[in-house]
């Protein structure tokens, strides 16, 4: 791992409303990884939501208000790190369309920040287990993070990465799609899980709490011993 000697990099984290409320471990893991790499981490407590759910469901006006509130909350941030590809994509690609003229700070998805800004792929993590990675749609297609998450996972001590068949296909979460077209959403998720199980991996790793919640809910209903985990949680591992 690279210990950074120079002046600490100041980052503000946007934990996302979903991780904040239901998956605080994802936020804590994000803090752990960033601090281990010498960053000075700030969590502006006024933060709530990026507005993605409202925008994607057809409620652009409240979405725009949330983007403006995000911009106010993070107005002084040098860099905002988000443990979610889809919230990053919302802010970066749709923020100005729902909140015209808004000034947003630089926003990075976690793997982008680690690899591109800090220039690190080995974050000093240890994780003993087999993992398969689901490259979430918005990380893959909206942000184009490419192989960054894979490079981070490959550098984890003790981790064996298994290739996921049909990896690029959506897991079926899709925000309110998961409840509006619940059956199609579940059918997509079941196929994703079947593909993951075919690798024999013990963990399905993603970089979005939403995909993790969807796949985790299906795994739990199946009573499968396979776990869904967030990339940040694995990168924070020191076992």
């Amino acid at each position: 791992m690279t210990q950074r000697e120079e002046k600490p990099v100041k980052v503000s984290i946007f934990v996302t409303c979903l991780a904040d409320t239901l998956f605080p471990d994802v936020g804590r893991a994000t803090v752990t990884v960033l601090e281990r790499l010498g960053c000075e981490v700030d969590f502006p407590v006024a933060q709530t939501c990026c507005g993605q759910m409202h925008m994607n469901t057809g409620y652009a006006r409240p979405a725009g208000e949330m983007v403006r509130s995000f911009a106010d909350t993070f107005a002084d941030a040098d860099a905002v790190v988000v443990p979610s590809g889809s919230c990053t994509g919302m802010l970066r690609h749709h923020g100005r369309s729902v909140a015209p003229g808004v000034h947003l700070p630089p926003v990075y998805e976690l793997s982008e920040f680690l690899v591109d800004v800090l220039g690190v792929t080995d974050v000093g993590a240890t994780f003993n287990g087999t993992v398969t990675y689901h490259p979430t749609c918005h990380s893959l297609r909206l942000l184009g993070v490419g192989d960054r998450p894979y490079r981070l996972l490959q550098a984890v001590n003790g981790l064996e990465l298994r290739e996921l068949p049909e990896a690029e296909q959506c897991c079926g979460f899709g925000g309110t799609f998961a409840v509006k077209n619940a059956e199609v959403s579940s059918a997509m998720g079941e196929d994703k899980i079947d593909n993951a199980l075919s690798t024999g991996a013990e963990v399905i790793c993603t970089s979005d709490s939403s995909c993790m919640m969807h796949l985790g809910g299906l795994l739990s209903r199946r009573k499968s011993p396979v776990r869904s985990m967030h990339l940040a949680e694995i990168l924070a591992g020191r076992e």
Partner: protein
Amino acid sequence: MAKTDSTLHPRPGVAFLGMPAFTEAAHIALGDDQLRRNLGRATRTIRDKRKRSVAELDDWQDLRTAAAMIKDRTLADLDRHLEQFEAAATAAGAIVHWAADADEAVRISLDIVRAHQASDVIKVKSMATQEIGLNEAFAEEGIHAWETDLAELIVQLGGDTPSHFLVPAIHRNREEIKQIFLDRMGEVGRPAPEDLTDEPRRLAEAARLHLREKFLNTSVGFSGANFAIAETGTLVVLESEGNGRMCLTLPDVLVSVVGIEKILPTFADLEVFMQVLPRSSTAERMNPYTTMWTGVTEGDGPQEMHIILLDNGRTRALADNTGRQALRCIRCSACLNVCPVYERVGGHAYGSVYPGPIGAILNPLLHGVSDEHDAALPYASSLCGACYKACPVKIDIPTVLIEQRAEVVDERADSGRPNAEALAMRIAAWTFADHRRLERAQRLAGRAAPIARHVRRLPGLLGGWTSSRDLPPIPDESFHQWWERTRGAGR
């Protein structure tokens, strides 16, 4: 003529009559294991082939950009290009008609067929004639319209409706096709041989012999067009079997129904589209049968040519700032093949001749969202973006879907009826407007955690979640609470 078992007929301009709205139709489709296997296998094959074929070109992204720009430039000036096309085609001996909607296009078509006292017509595979419900309208008047594309023939003989642009019988496997041929061909013409097997070669041979009779005995042909060249008045049809060319060259009279968005300004513009269309649709480097014709040539081919320029909602779509990009569509079907929703529910669930991601935006653009079928379509997507990435004319389908969802939301708000979703969204927006409200909600949730652990089924909107998925356990403290407890008051 072909008997039709099915009650699913395209209603001109709108969804297939009798099809339930998307969510319910998807439920039916998901219960059909055979359908899911057929679709899964077929879409995976085409999608892998397309990916390989596209990867051969190092200027693929430039070609996509060029194709999108040519289409946008043309659409910005569509009226002028259409008039230029009309003048050039007329000068070359074609008769050009203008149809504002499906009814008008059908009426013009019927008048032409009646003027020739024809009882049968042969057809090139065409989306536009399906869109206007031509076959069904002809059947009501006692005129038989014979599909000659192999897959369309399967669909027609099976009393079925197409479920894909390019492979309309994608929902059928070889065994099912064999049975349809054996059961139905004899009722409408030359029967299939009794010893027919499900070998592709034998199936194709049975279709060839059956169709050959139709080609030689029918004097009126119908087609659509992939492109219409404004400067020359030329129509262009791309196909893979050669059956289309038979229909375009053998009859005495040829009628082509062409959507007004098919216009390209110049012949040179074809260069780009002849590269992007075959690779995106059939994954071929070069299209097998490309037929181009400009009006009438004495002593060669049809001696009477009609071109029906069809609006049927296209000017409505053109007026939509974000949505008009859907008119770039060249019906390649790449978006269908990469769509995880389409792969699982098939084309019929969309209830329209235009299924899949492009259908999900095109139908609401052509007709608006007041009909429940059209209003359900913008939600038939997880917004995964695979369609946008595959689209050879760069239609940003997810963004258009999001705009249309907003249209549906506005339409419902105007109706004044109580709406659980709008209420939930208002409550969520109120909660997110101030972090103290969010933190209060999180503390309440934390207190409910011991009870929530036992919840297996939620009511209302969230019931969709718990029907197949467990809820995540609610943590004892939120991230906000953890931060404040361990790091002080932040700022």
